[in-house]
């Protein structure tokens, strides 16, 4: 693994993979924000922050 990382190519591939994962998480969090803003749901600010925090804790990246 270490030798692979030394050539710099796999390291940047790792970075892209992480960026890709983060992009996925952000997309899901934005969808959660949208859902929580729907007229029939609408939660308080405190509950919304808690729901976002729970979602982040569940995500692995």
């Amino acid at each position, binding site marked *: 693994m270490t030798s692979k990382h030394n050539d710099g190519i796999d390291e940047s591939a790792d970075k892209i993979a992480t960026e890709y994962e983060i992009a996925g998480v952000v997309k899901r969090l934005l969808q959660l924000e*949208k859902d929580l803003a729907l007229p029939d749901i609408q939660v308080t600010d405190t509950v919304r922050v808690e729901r976002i925090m729970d979602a982040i804790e569940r995500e692995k990246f």
Partner: protein
Amino acid sequence: MLLKRLDIENFRLFYGPHTIDFATEKGMSVTVFHGENGAGKTTLLNAIHWCLTNKFTPGVNKPDVIINDDATLEGNTECFVELWFEHDGIDYRLKRGFENGISILNLLKIEHGNTKPIAEGKNVDRIIQKIVPKELVKWFFFDGEAIAAFSLSGSKNFKADLRETLGFLYVDKLQADLEACLSKKQRLVSLGTNDKELRKLQESIDKIEHVMPLLLENKSNHEQAIAQIEIQQRENDRNLANQPQVSELTKRRSGLERAKKTLEDNKDAIKKNTIYLLSHSASALYVSKEAKNLEKTFQVKEVEGKLPAPYSNQLVADILKSELCVCGRPVKHGTKEEDCINKLLEFANTTEINARLNEVRLLIRNIENLTDPFLQKLEAYRKKSSEIDRSIAETVADIDEVTQAINAADTDEVHRLEQERNELRQKYSQTFSEQRMNEQTISSNKRIILDLRNKIDSVAKKLGVNKKLQSDISKIEKLIDYLNRKANEKEEQVLRVLEVELNNSLKKYLTKNFIAKIDPESYKVSLLNDAGGNVGESTGEGQVLKFAFISTLIAIASKKSSEKIDFLVDPTVAPLVLDAPLSTLDTEYGSSVATTLAKNVEQLVLMGNAKSWDGKVEESLSQFMGKEYLIVSRARGPQGNKPNKKIVINQKTYEMNEYEAKRNDSYIQEIRLR
């Protein structure tokens, strides 16, 4: 969404039931309503707006009144608006009723001529939000009477509205929520240890965070107060303009005030350009100054022989003449020293020194060539800024002069309105300065919190606190970093696309080669002429820019832009309903705006008065028009001296108002098309 029909009953100006069928045929989907001011055009627009959102458009008259006054007097406690529309091939009926002070919403689906209830209450809101997102309603159903007051000036409200429309609403929310998550987690870190330094840092954050909600509430209150004062100022302007004695003077003063605003905007733009130029040319200007000093040093030290190597002719001649070496040793005639110095002449080389000096001069010229344009530009900005200052001073003097003339008018009402105007101005300026101070405190607090959090982070790392907590914090930080980066990139892209599309739209509306520019910081939209000068918002072209802007936003919302934008708001296709759009425009632009709008939107509903309905507009719109209505206003009392307003449609004259009616209300009459 395609509007098909509107049923209203006892809604505001309209007593009893009324039905309107909208034009829906492709290519002929324009519906026009004619009506005098106060006849009910804005009420019709608001009937649709209220049905969709349970709210009226901003600045609407008597927003508390929903049920028609006469109907109320007769004991009616309810009214309704029902909107028939098609969306994605399905027909719907959206009905908002108002009963005993409560708004009730129902959505029915029409299948094979039968209606089937599909949702009620908040569930309907959820479906409607998908069809026309609330962020876009204000653009699709636009109160054009307010277009003169609608400003693309980059105010905080305008920026916030536009950000919401462009899809940043949830990004902004998520950014704020992630910050709150980070704050909560860091708090747990500090509380989870017994470290005194950590606890102290956290206490400082807690103290600031304790006052932040109040500061943010103040911010929102200030914004609302300013918006409210602006509405009152416009009302005051209108009332003053309606006073016959000072009508012309008031209009002149309003024109001067708009001119002053344009000048101030131009000055702001120059200030920004100067700061930008200075920040980009500071290093070049410094190098230029230093290079000039270097040239001087060379001149003095080498040419005048103050540097000993390589020896210059002048240096040797000076030593022999003064009989004193640069080291202080005497060089007397006939001595060994004089002999040595004379020998130096063989090596002395002024030509070489001059060659070196010329190289340095060339370098300095090159630097000057690079920096001169900066200096010239700075000088041009300084001159322009002084010119603007003079123009502002002249305009202020003119405003004062007109104000004195207005105050000289001999009517109590004018005096009262002028006093009200002064009070509103004072209130505005006080609220504005309070808002600025509040905002400075907010941003300073945010900086302090950020700084304290960084300190907590570094202390916590040293102490090695709970790994799970550290991992959560690191995750949130990564998300914040990613979101901030992407939001900036996205904002840049969206504004660029908006600018390109806006300029494409403008080409269709205007014959002149004007260019629209959007300031990436304030979102202010400016119109520039060929020479790069700012064309004021109050000019004919400035008004056209607003229509071009609205139709561009709508085109982008329906994903019709040349470049694909990954929108967070779902793509929306809805009719454009404009109340009184043409009355604010110069006649030369009326027909071009109407035609371009008709061509560019799926369905167009235009409302206007007799003044804006000239032959040209009628001729250019007739090919797209599928339905045409006249809103006739009725008054209970006798006509007296009041005028009978008329409108000519299809070469036929129609009366726009009736007197000695049973009640004060309006009714809608369909006009047969040619």
